[in-house]
């Protein structure tokens, strides 16, 4: 028993540091890029821009219809066979941001379409341009509406980054596998890493709740 505790205690700082130095940055960088993709894809659909709109629908269809793990394999193991080599971490960022971008795009499009049409009309009636109305009126309201759903997606993503272990990204779960392989304390290690994911998710949930409270200053519609 001593041995198990010793392994857990010894591995904790290693796992946590992988979590803080890899899992969290991988999540945040990918999510930030995903949000940019999502806003662009949502706006293209909202504004009904021909051709681009069909491309966006195709992108969402493909990404949402295929497993994340398969997407990771295609980029990291598949591309080298046609001469394109991407390092593990950038490959993971690429896949996670493209993947999350497709989901977040639908979340944002839904929120954007839920803003009453009178908001756009009121903007036009005071002489604002489409872009000005979008920036000052529609998008802020869209983010307010989409915030809880996006928060959930961010929390999912923290956990999903464990899949990156499969393409040799040395994130938290990869580290847990490595220590488990060395010490044979599989149960202890995997439970331990599960607890750290749980801590990360809990912190994010609390931040989400705090953010929702902050955003509620202008009340409900």
């Amino acid at each position, binding site marked *: 028993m001593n041995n198990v505790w010793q392994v857990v205690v010894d591995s904790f700082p290693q796992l946590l540091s992988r979590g803080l130095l890899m899992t969290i940055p991988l999540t945040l960088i990918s999510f930030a890029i995903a949000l940019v993709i999502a806003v662009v894809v949502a706006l293209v659909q909202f504004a009904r821009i021909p051709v681009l709109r069909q491309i966006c629908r195709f992108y969402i269809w493909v990404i949402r219809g295929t497993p994340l793990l398969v997407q990771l394999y295609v980029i990291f193991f598949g591309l080298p066979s046609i001469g394109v080599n991407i390092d593990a971490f950038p490959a993971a960022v690429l896949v996670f941001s493209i993947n999350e971008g497709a989901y977040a795009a639908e979340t944002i499009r839904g929120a954007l379409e839920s803003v009453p049409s009178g908001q756009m*009309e*009121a903007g*036009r*009636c005071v002489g604002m341009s489409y872009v000005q109305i979008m920036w000052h*009126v529609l998008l802020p309201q869209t983010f*307010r509406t989409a915030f809880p759903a996006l928060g959930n997606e961010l929390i999912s993503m923290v956990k999903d980054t464990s899949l990156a272990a499969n393409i040799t990204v040395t994130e938290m779960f990869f580290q847990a596998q490595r220590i488990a392989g060395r010490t044979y304390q599989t149960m202890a290690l995997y439970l331990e890493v599960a607890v750290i994911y749980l801590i990360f998710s809990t912190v994010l949930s609390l931040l989400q709740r705090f953010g929702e409270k902050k955003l509620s200053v202008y009340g409900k519609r």
Partner: protein
Amino acid sequence: MALLEIKNIRKNFDDKEVLRGVSFNVNKGDVVSILGPSGSGKTTLLRCINFLEKADSGLMEFDGQMYDLKDMSKKEITGIQKQTGFVFQDYNLFQNKNVLDNVTLGLTSARKIPKDQAVRTAMDMLSRVGMEDYAKQYPSQLSGGQQQRVAIARALATDPKIIYFDEPTSALDPQLTGEVLTVMRQLAEGGMTMLVVTHEMSFAREVSNKVIFMDGGVVVEQGVPDEFFSNPKEERTREFLRLETE
């Protein structure tokens, strides 16, 4: 010379003819009330004139410039929208902006007026409608009547040549309509040009200097209020007035 002249405006929604050739004009300083039963096309008329709907055909002369309503560029449309104000039935205040920012946004973003100057103008307009104490509140914290007064201040702030009102009191409880009508009355007395779609017969009669009665997508009768209310010429007008004053 007319500030606004509309000639033969037409609009269909699918197969339904909503406007079947409407013509009228508004002179500078006029307060024109548009009356009519629901479905008569009066709201659509107002929305077409301010380009919230695209008219199928018709001409518009605005401030000495002639436009073909079915064939206008975005630039021409925004150019006219910058010179007009619009007050909606359901206020449509920007939900994510406080009262002050609702009024300044059209100035700072659309007209690039410096922030401090925009705030001064906005506070001025808010005190004209009696809402200066609510500058930091959000629309959802206000009553309907208060929101509508802010909406009027927002329209006023851009120094419009004419303000369109689309049934501005129809969404309000009876006890709240009074505060909005009082503000509109003051505007009229101050010489503001107004085109008002309304069900408020007393407003049409006492405040406006011209009344247009619409039914079935056409203007049935128009004239000065005294004449219109006491001596309507058309049978359809008489019937409408009878129902409204019952």
